[in-house]
């Protein structure tokens, strides 16, 4: 038997690893191709008007993405508003004020918040959050009849999404604050600036990009969330025009109708929704990553 040289083994090893890389990338390309191929019937039927047709009607075989885009954007906007305001201020307080042990307890809690699976958020959304909204709107006089009973709707979904997105915003903003130049903040303190002045004048100007990046990552995550949203959004694809109305989002529609969809057209329309979802999350995610240096984030904890 011929002895294989060390060089040969090295080449073989590198070859096997390269094959693994090709498998990973190939799986990605195959996935995108599958989404495109499966949505062909719908693309043929509706063309570009799929994007702005305001009807999703399986009975009359009319499919348009607009109601779902509406639901996705509205819930994501609520989520980002909540997660942005609360998340950024939390990140500031975790780095600038407070006792060290309280800080570490809170950051531990936020990390746990990030690993909780979306079905468990779904339980909480369905059995705790939605009833609270239901009761609340009941007291307020019930702006919309159906909402008053269940609490399902855009607002409930948006709030739950906000909670789910918040750990991402906190983690990324925190990293951004940590990588802001310390000497400038210290110089501000040394000149007698208060905490508030230091943060406003010597810390935040360096963190803007990080915050923007974290919001884009949050947007991508909010768009892609299917399970928890489908439990409380009300699953009715229409443009209600109210925060209390039922609606549906791209991902949520996929979660609750794909498995029971009618094969040629409806399934294809749903795959087109999937393709749309992929494109949008990719754009948001790419924008987010472009604001955040890859090295700036520890690989240990990545909630997105």
């Amino acid at each position, binding site marked *: 038997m011929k002895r294989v040289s060390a060089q040969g083994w090295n080449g073989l090893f*590198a070859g096997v*690893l*390269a094959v*693994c*890389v090709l*498998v*990973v*990338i190939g*799986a*990605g390309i*195959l996935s995108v191709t*599958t989404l495109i*191929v*499966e949505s062909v019937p719908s693309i043929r039927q509706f063309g570009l008007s799929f994007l702005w047709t305001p009807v999703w009607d399986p009975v009359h075989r009319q499919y348009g993405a607009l109601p779902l885009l509406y639901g996705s954007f509205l819930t994501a906007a609520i989520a980002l508003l909540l997660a942005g305001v609360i*998340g950024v*201020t939390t990140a*500031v*307080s975790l780095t600038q*004020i407070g006792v060290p042990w309280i800080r570490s307890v*809170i950051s531990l809690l*936020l990390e*746990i*918040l990030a*690993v909780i*699976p*979306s*079905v*468990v*958020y*779904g*339980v*909480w959304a*369905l*059995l*705790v959050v939605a009833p609270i909204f239901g009761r609340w709107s009941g007291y307020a006089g019930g702006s919309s009849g159906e909402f008053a009973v269940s609490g399902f709707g855009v607002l409930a979904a948006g709030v739950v999404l906000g909670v789910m997105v*918040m750990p991402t915003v*906190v983690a990324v903003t925190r990293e951004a604050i940590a990588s802001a130049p310390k000497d400038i903040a210290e110089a501000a303190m040394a000149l007698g600036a*208060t*905490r*508030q*002045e230091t943060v406003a004048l010597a810390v935040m100007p360096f963190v803007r990009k990080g915050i923007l990046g974290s919001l884009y990552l949050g947007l991508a995550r909010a*768009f*892609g*969330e*299917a*399970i928890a949203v489908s439990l409380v959004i009300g699953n009715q694809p229409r443009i209600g025009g109210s925060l209390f109305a039922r609606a549906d989002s791209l*991902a949520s529609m996929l*979660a609750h109708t*794909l*498995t*029971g969809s009618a094969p040629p057209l409806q399934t294809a329309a749903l795959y087109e929704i*999937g393709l749309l979802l*992929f494109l949008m*999350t*990719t754009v948001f*995610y*790419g924008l987010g990553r472009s604001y955040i240096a*890859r090295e700036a984030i520890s*690989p*240990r904890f990545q909630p997105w």
Partner: protein
Amino acid sequence: MVTRVSYKTVRKLKNALFVSVLSAMTSLAVLPLLSLLWSIGFHGIAALVSLSGAPLSRGVASAVLVNALAQSLVTTASSAVIAVSLGVAAAIYSSQYAGLRVGRVIRFTVDILSGAPSILAGMVLFALLSGVSSLTAGVLALVLCMLPVVVRTADQVLVAVPVAYIEGSLALGASRIQTIFATVLPIAHKSLITALLFVTARMAGEAAPLLIILDGGTASKGGRWFQPLPLRLYSDLTHGGSFPHQIAYVEALILLVTIVTIYGLARWIGRPDRW
């Protein structure tokens, strides 16, 4: 003089307001988690107690639960083994062998894919297997959705290994394989295991790809038997049953405890903050 003092007071007041707003927002951030843990912990344990009182339902419920848990264990473990071995191999290539440009292409692709929603992995396999559903299909869907994340995190950990060690090893005459197995992996192993456990913890609770694969295909004819725990929980929430809420709380509690345990294990292994 008077204006100076009042200006100082204004600044102090502003600062006090700032600190209190920050504290209030931080408590607001923690509030949902406490609410979630409280409701699931409290109702879960209460439901566990009340369900274990009735012998008949206890038998049925526990059989269903044990079945779901076992399926979860099998799907998560096998998809983790496949995705981790494939993904870490790819990450070793991208961090140790690939040149600057190839490495950038791999990282870019993997970054894009890891940002995609998990439900799409289920849709892709649903189409590719034309609706055939089995636990194997579920495992493949989980692998598809885990793989880019594994490559990305593993690559990041491996790239963080100081180049000086690698150069030293190569300078002493070690081959690339020897360098990888005797230098790179031993240095990175703690962070690597931690990062991979985090990914596994996330996948253990993933329901969306399983929902598409297992709920829609031929398996639905066999009743609700092919149902790992997260999926079981989702269908209990949507379809209901004899004690839908109580069972949902119990299942959520089990899932939560399992995942937080994996998470705790990961943190414990990654204890010293080396990176």
